[in-house]
């Protein structure tokens, strides 16, 4: 077990360093110049522009900047954002919680909606199966940004069930009421994907020999389904869940822009468009770390749940 884990952690650390180095290099090569973006085309004297460049140390060579950035990170200082003229860590801190609420609520929708549809379709042939798969296919074709506007228009403006914009004032109740619509918009395509994979996995498990054995030994159908079919079928879905969770964090950018929610995804898009080095690097670092952590968690979960992996590695 330990050797397997160390290898995964090593791979994770490597990913973090590689990606942050890559991001840094990418931003360093960027032809534009953040100060230009800052002025957004407004006139400003050359002296003032030079003063601002110095303020954000944009003239240092690549490697010194990367090293100073990394040492800063370890001291908890993520630098100041040029676009917002604010300390990056404060900027991200307030938004990280909002995005996490959004991702978690959306993840709940995806699992509930995806798994139920997938299991229903997997276990029953004919009507239910084709109906659930049809819904899954249609929903998977509705991208988050199209879905958002439909949901806002119908549920927020016309029916007034949910607030139209904003991420709530931080309290759990307001977060839930504000984040339901965006979470649903996010859940469309991911949920459909989970449904389709679960259905396929259920089909594979129900056709397997050990299910025939259980039936022949007189185990009642509902126990065979829950203990042998669904339990085994969920394993591959878990690893998929890890990937989806990670993808979700970034794709919040779509709904954050449509619902005017101040989250990490939206912030990243703005920061990237304005070539705000410090902010882009900081968010990427956080995203990559969460990727690695989530993947590690999925690996451990897989290790615990699926003994086949253990014997393979040992």
């Amino acid at each position: 077990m330990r050797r397997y884990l160390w290898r995964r952690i090593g791979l994770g650390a490597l990913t973090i360093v590689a990606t942050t180095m890559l991001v840094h290099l990418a931003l360093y090569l960027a032809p534009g110049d953040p100060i230009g973006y800052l002025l957004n085309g407004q006139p400003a004297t050359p002296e003032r522009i030079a003063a601002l460049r110095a303020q954000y140390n944009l003239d240092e060579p690549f490697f010194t900047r990367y090293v100073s950035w990394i040492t800063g990170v370890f001291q908890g200082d993520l630098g100041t954002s040029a676009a917002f003229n604010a300390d990056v860590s404060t900027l991200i801190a307030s938004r990280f919680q909002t995005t996490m609420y959004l991702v978690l609520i959306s993840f709940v929708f995806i699992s509930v909606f995806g798994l139920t549809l997938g299991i229903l379709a997997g276990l029953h042939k004919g009507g239910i199966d084709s109906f659930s798969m049809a819904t899954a296919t249609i929903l998977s074709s509705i991208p988050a940004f199209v879905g958002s506007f439909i949901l806002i228009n119908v549920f927020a403006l016309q029916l007034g069930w949910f607030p139209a914009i904003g991420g709530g004032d931080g309290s759990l109740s307001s977060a839930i009421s504000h984040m339901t619509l965006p979470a649903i918009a996010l859940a469309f395509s991911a949920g459909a994907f989970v449904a389709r994979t679960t259905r396929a996995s259920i089909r594979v498990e129900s056709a397997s020999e050990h299910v025939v054995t259980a039936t022949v030994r007189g185990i009642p159908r509902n126990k065979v389904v829950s203990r042998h079919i669904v339990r085994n079928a969920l394993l591959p879905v878990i690893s998929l869940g890890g990937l989806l969770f990670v993808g979700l964090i970034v794709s919040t950018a779509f709904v954050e822009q449509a619902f005017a929610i101040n989250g990490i995804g939206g912030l990243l898009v703005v920061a990237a468009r304005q070539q705000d080095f410090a902010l882009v690097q900081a968010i990427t670092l956080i995203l990559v770390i969460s990727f690695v952590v989530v993947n590690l968690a999925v690996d451990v979960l897989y290790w615990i749940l699926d003994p086949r992996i253990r014997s393979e590695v040992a």
Partner: protein
Amino acid sequence: MSLVEIESFTLDVQVVEASARVIHEVSFKLEAGQSIGIVGESGSGKSLTLRAIAGLSPENSVVGGKISFQGEEVSAMDRERLMQYRSSQVAMIFQDPRSAINPVRKVGDFLTENVVTNLGWSKSDAKTKAIEVLTEVGISNPEKQLKAFPSELSGGMLQRVMIASNLLCQPDLLLADEPTTALDVTTQSSVMALIDQLRLSRGMAMIFVSHNLELATAVCDKILVMYAGRIVELLPAENLREKSRHPYTRALLDARPRLDGRQNRLNAIPGQPASGLEWTQGCTFAARCAFAQDICRSEVPVLRKIQESDVACHRADEIDWDVS
């Protein structure tokens, strides 16, 4: 009334949007404590017959005739009764234990699942009984193996676990579908010895399906030879080698290379083993039979008693095997 009675059992299966008959006529009886070996090549329907007895015919297939266990018809059993029948009266062993046991659950859970869930045993009783049967099937330090996962055990050990799981609920009938085909010959020998000894000590009846005639003869009282969905011969095991009267049985025995001597060429049976679906009329084996005559190709031979065996062959009494 005998333990198992099968009267003109037929089976129609769904094949490419049409249903076709794959088993045409199977009838035999099995007394309690007795063992019968069903042998034949692929497509003969031996495995389908075995599964029908456990009520496991394939989805959307139609079962004809009557299969009854202790006088009660299997296909008439409702869900409750079928579950009770399967959990305590009949037990089944499969060809590949590795795919027949859920790889994600512990061996202990597999062993005790049946008795705990269906027969309401307490967890501790089931555990002690499980250890008992594991030792009985010859597995060393059973406590450790209970916590192990199937992926950590060898093929031979897994088959023993499968057998042990059936012993817990004291079944009256053991259905074995080619239990040792996937095993090495040395493991096969010890597993078959185990099955034989357990069956006799517990007075269990057994139906043993195999493509290996010698193996079936060694462990069964009677041998039933099937070809293309029909019974061609039913005879006591000890008569198989010398006194079988059906050309197919004879040909099968001659086609196998011998261990105790060397022939230059084997007298192989021409053509390919037919399945029940390809039968049109007459004797199913007529196309490949060296003794076939017009009658064989037109009329279906009926099973009839000749000395100690039942044979379905028009010329069974004419052919003098000692000479040819």
